[in-house]
């Protein structure tokens, strides 16, 4: 539920109940005042009659007007003066009347005087008041609705702009601080807080980025020393004879470490979006090139490679395209079995690489995670597919894994 909606509901409920209670009070108060007014009139009528009686010693002549009816009746004993409201039919129509009943003595005889005034005027007044009240409620609700629809939406605009900006924010992008909505304190506060938070996050991110890069770089120098020392060491035939296997093992580890480190560095760079994806890349050519690079390997292992490549041009990055295809093709060969097959199909910007394998189905949720290795796999860095995933994520492509008929299927959608 939106804030304005919630606010609206409360507002409407409160408005209606206040108006209802208010109207009731208003009605009763007004009714009371009007009756009092009538009573005053009746009282003065009574006084007029009394003074007429005192002056003339007889009852005044009865003149019925539309607004006043007077009746005299003989009474047995004097009564208290009372005011009553009741329905009477004085001129052919049943109507509400306000009446005064009092007794008056005229020459030793007592008369009951009854003066009645119709309530018709009062009733129409009340009707008018109720009509106005209802109209006011309706108008206020309508006005509220319009204000909410138009004004509130406009007022909240800076808020939504800020939200859009935060939603679209990527840490590697250069952040342009939000400044809209400067007139409203709450929004300014929100924007200010977001700007500060992002500045802090970005600062930390840059520090980390610099550190990763530097640390990775610092690692290559000692590796270079180890490797050069090994190259020197093997020149000593005595050492070589005695420690051939040891030196080979060390060399392999150095190489592995170096590759691992290169892969991590690459992964970091891709994550940091240090490649601008604005180059025209012919993916079919990249794939064909890779396959011919690996000819020797596939021939040696007696792996049959079939290619079905339609010309595909995408906006990408040459180096990343090369890495992407290399890692996929490399895996297809590396984990293949002797005499196996690799089918590469590129149609409609979708590349699928299907290969037979020594291993069974892989966990599709884990294979793209760093350092995931299947049990049969020993030598890999465990980063190849992570890099593929990261490159695809960066470029907005989809990469998926499937296991069909005992074959691994990797597909990349360059869309």
């Amino acid at each position, binding site marked *: 539920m939106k804030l304005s909606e919630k606010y609206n509901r409360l507002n409407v409920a409160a408005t209606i109940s206040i108006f209802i209670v208010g109207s009731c009070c208003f009605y009763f108060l007004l009714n009371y005042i009007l009756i009092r007014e009538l009573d005053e009139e009746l009282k003065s009528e009574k006084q007029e009659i009394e003074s007429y009686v005192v002056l003339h010693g007889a009852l005044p002549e009865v003149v019925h007007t539309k607004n006043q009816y007077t009746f005299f009746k003989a009474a047995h004993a004097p009564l208290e003066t009372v005011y009553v409201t009741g329905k009477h039919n004085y001129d052919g129509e049943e109507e509400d009347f306000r009446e005064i009943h009092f007794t008056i003595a005229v020459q030793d005889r007592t008369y009951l005087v009854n003066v009645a005034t119709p309530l018709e005027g009062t009733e129409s007044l009340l009707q008018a008041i109720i009509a106005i009240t209802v109209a006011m409620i309706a108008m206020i609700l309508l006005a509220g609705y319009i204000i909410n629809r138009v004004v509130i939406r406009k007022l909240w605009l800076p808020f939504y702009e800020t939200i859009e900006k935060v939603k679209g924010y990527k840490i590697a992008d250069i952040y342009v601080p939000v400044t809209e909505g400067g007139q409203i304190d709450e929004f300014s506060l929100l924007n200010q807080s977001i700007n500060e938070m992002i500045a802090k996050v970005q600062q930390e991110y840059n520090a980390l980025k610099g550190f990763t890069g530097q640390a990775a*770089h*610092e690692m*290559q*120098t000692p*590796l*270079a*020393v*180890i*490797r*050069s*020392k*090994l*190259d*020197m060491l*093997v*020149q000593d*035939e005595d050492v*070589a*004879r005695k420690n*051939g*296997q040891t*030196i*080979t093992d060390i*060399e*392999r580890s*150095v*190489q592995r470490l*170096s*590759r691992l480190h*290169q892969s991590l*560095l690459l992964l970091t760079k891709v994550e940091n979006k240090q490649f601008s994806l604005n180059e025209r890349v012919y993916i079919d050519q990249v794939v064909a090139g890779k396959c011919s690079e690996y000819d*020797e*390997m596939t021939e*040696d292992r007696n792996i049959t490679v079939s290619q079905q490549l339609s010309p595909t041009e995408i906006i990408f990055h040459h*180096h990343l395209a090369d890495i992407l295809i*290399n890692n996929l093709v*490399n895996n297809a*060969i*590396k984990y293949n079995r002797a005499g196996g097959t690799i089918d590469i199909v590129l149609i409609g910007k979708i590349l699928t690489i299907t290969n037979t394998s020594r291993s069974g189905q892989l966990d599709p949720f884990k294979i793209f995670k760093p350092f995931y290795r299947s049990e049969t796999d*020993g*030598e*890999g*860095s465990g980063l190849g597919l992570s890099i593929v995933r990261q490159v695809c994520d960066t470029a907005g492509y989809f990469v998926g894994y499937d296991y069909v008929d005992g074959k691994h299927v990797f597909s990349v959608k360059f869309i």
Partner: protein
Amino acid sequence: MKVLIVEDEPALNRSIVEYLSSQQYLCESVNNYRDALAKTELYHYDCIVLDIMLPDGNGLNILRELQSAKKTDGVIIISARNELDDKIDGLRLGADDYLTKPFHLPELSMRIAAIIRRKNQQGSVMLTFEEIALDTSAKTVTVNSQNIMLTRKEYELLVYLITNKNRVLSKNAIAEHLWGDDMDIADNYDFIYAHIKNLRKKMLQAGARDYIHSVYGMGYKFALV
């Protein structure tokens, strides 16, 4: 052949000097930017091995100095940074080659030899060892003046072996030379064995002596004995 080594890491600097000296190069070495600049201003080198990340300056500036002084020294950059931009910058500023750390010393040596061959204008592009001769521009090989046909990989292997003659070359170094860094397929060693076997067979058939010696299962050596 005079080579200047500019590398601030002392251990690596020593190894390079030691290896290249054994290859009949005359090596001088410095470990900072200031000395490197002084040396390159004063002398001519056939090749400069240049680390671009030096504690007191950027090695790329040395390239700029060489360019503005119109010097023709060959330069190979060695850098821990495997950045495309660095490579492009270096090569644009007149470097002849770019090698990323960690590298194998035989690889460095081979590349230095290639640079010197290219730079040597009146000299030959020929690489010879006894009865074997390689024309490095036409990429042809003759044994006793008779052409032999080698595959691309076999040719590359032969160049690598001859430029690092009398040195023990580990299988790992050879693999990295032939397939580069991308190729991390585990059983490259079998391929090396296959290529060596084929190369040796072709050479022997053409009448060359067997110069390729296996060294205790860990590598190979190209030498007379």
